[in-house]
């Protein structure tokens, strides 16, 4: 049992918040509450990144996942009409089977994690400089390809969501 360090306490709080947000997302009945619960999870994940010495990623996580993606989803909710409440589940068998399948997957992973723990020493914290050098030197090809990908997604989203002009 490791001694209770500050990192452990911070991890524990953030993990409970992240899992709590995710569980609430599954269990809330109103769609907007679900989206907000997930924002909570994303924020906690940013905190986890800081614990892992990845401050830059934490910032990116807040900017993109908490900021952009969540706002996008909230717009998605606003632009579409929703029943206020989710209907009670009409497919109990499907739900139970899904639950069993997911639980089995988790049990397998849990077992693997605890039978073979990782023993590595923590690496030196990565600086933004080393991150930048890695991206812009070593991984410059996927970076350029990501630019193409974002362009494709942008154009595609416009094509798909554009209102058809009536003739």
């Amino acid at each position, binding site marked *: 049992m490791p001694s209770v360090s500050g990192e452990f306490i911070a991890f524990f709080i953030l993990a409970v918040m992240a899992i709590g947000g995710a569980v609430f997302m599954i269990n809330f009945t109103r769609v907007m509450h679900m989206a907000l619960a997930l924002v909570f999870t994303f924020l906690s994940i940013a905190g986890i990144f800081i614990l892992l010495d990845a401050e830059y990623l934490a910032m990116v996580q807040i900017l993109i996942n908490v900021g952009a993606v969540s706002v996008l989803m909230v717009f998605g909710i606003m632009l579409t009409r929703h029943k206020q409440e989710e209907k009670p589940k009409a497919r109990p068998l499907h739900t139970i089977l899904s639950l069993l399948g997911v639980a089995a997957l988790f049990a*397998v*992973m849990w077992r*693997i994690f605890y*039978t*073979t723990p*990782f023993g590595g020493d923590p690496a030196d914290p990565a600086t933004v400089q080393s991150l930048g050098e890695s991206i812009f*030197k*070593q*991984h*410059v*090809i*996927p970076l350029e*390809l*990501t630019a*193409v*990908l974002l*362009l*494709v*997604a942008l*154009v*595609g989203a416009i*094509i*798909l969501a554009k209102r*058809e002009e009536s003739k």
Partner: protein
Amino acid sequence: METNWLDYDWSVMLPEATIAAAVLLLLVIDMLMKKEQDRRFIGLLSLFAVLAAGVAVAFGFGKEQTLILDGSYLVDDFSLVFKLLILGGTTLILLSALSQEKSKEIDYKGEFYYLLLAATLGGMVMVSSADLITLFVGLEILSIASYILVGMRKKRLESVEAAWKYVVMGSVATAFILYGMSFLYGLTGSTNLDVVAERIFEVTRGGYDSFVYLSLLLMLVGFTFKAASAPFHMWAPDVYQGAPTPVTTFLAVVSKTAAIAFILRILRNAYLPGLWSMGEWQDVVSKILIAIAVASMIIGNVVALRQTNTKRLLAYSSIAHAGYLLVPLALFASIPQFIVGNDVFFGSIVYYLLAYMLMTTGAFAVLTIIERDRQDTDIRAFAGLYRRSPWLAIAMSIFLISLAGIPITAGFFGKFYILLNAIIVRNLWVAGIMMVTTVISYYYYFGIIRQMFFRPPTESKKISIPLGLAIVIVIGVIGTIGLGIMPKWVIEFVEGLSWY
């Protein structure tokens, strides 16, 4: 990292650069043009770009393997062959799309072409990298462009619904692949496949073998989805049916080729060297792959029996073909000198993919003509085709016979070589299942032939065949028969390449 990045031979990226430049150029041209202007030349330009890239790829044969940035991009014979297949498939699809402009099949002309090119670019990146990050980005370019292409005919509900199913299930598959890759990275600390392979060997000995299998299994969930093979094939029939027919062809031919190459690259370069020497590959991984292949063959062929929509039928048929393609992949490390055996097994995969490309694009081209004529993709739309257009019916029969794997067609030799692989490694059990499922498939392929030849036509009007589709069908027929009569040409060419 010692090499200055300017010292790399960047000219080897010419094929990708051509396609990427074409995407950007066409995008700008399409934006600047007025709405009512004729956009036909955009299709011609994209066809030209694909052909130019194909020529650039063809000039790469016979050279040394080239690595850029430690394998972030790499050119070897493996990537060149698969790039040629991808570009060839795209050419045929562009040809058949070009002649459909007048029909309402594709509403947004400019966008269709540059998105198709972008998807092709993604596929090309997927086959020519030895780095997980680049492979992942390539996979996502292909996937995202495909989601959009499927949903493009948005006036039709089925198209948008198919796109929705595709984007949800595709993203889940992406999540599985990414999650699997994260464990692979955690074990090896690298995204370079060669380094990964070395370290997998070490960590498997060091007692982390369960993590290695976890990463492999998570990735396989995503892979089987992307290649539309069992057990995660359920999206394929719905998406194939709902998508515009040229896009369906793209998914069935180009996406599948890229996915098979992607699986092959990761399994062979990253997992095989580490797991093979301890016999873990033969004991575990090979068996999992065989199970996937067998399940795909059985599910694809049996469920196809009760399909009445031709597109759905061809979707199940493509699931079954994914199963056949996975057989050499599953078996190729089962013989002791697997390095020697590689050529034979790769030869059979590439030959089969080529045959599959020719016959599938041909069959879809005929289906496009029928769909234009009858506004229907039900099997009954083929009724009496022989009376109305005998050549079309004969061409379709050749494609179907080839898909079914009956002699003197390319499909027969493709199956035959794969069967030989199974017999070489004495896996008669798999060979038996291949034969039984092939016989089952005769029934549904002959269902279409029966409609064409023995059912009376509901109308007697002549069917008009547009030029582009006619070219695709002629190429398909010549290729299918030609490869069937002289399979040695392709096989010898492929086996003469170096598959290190």
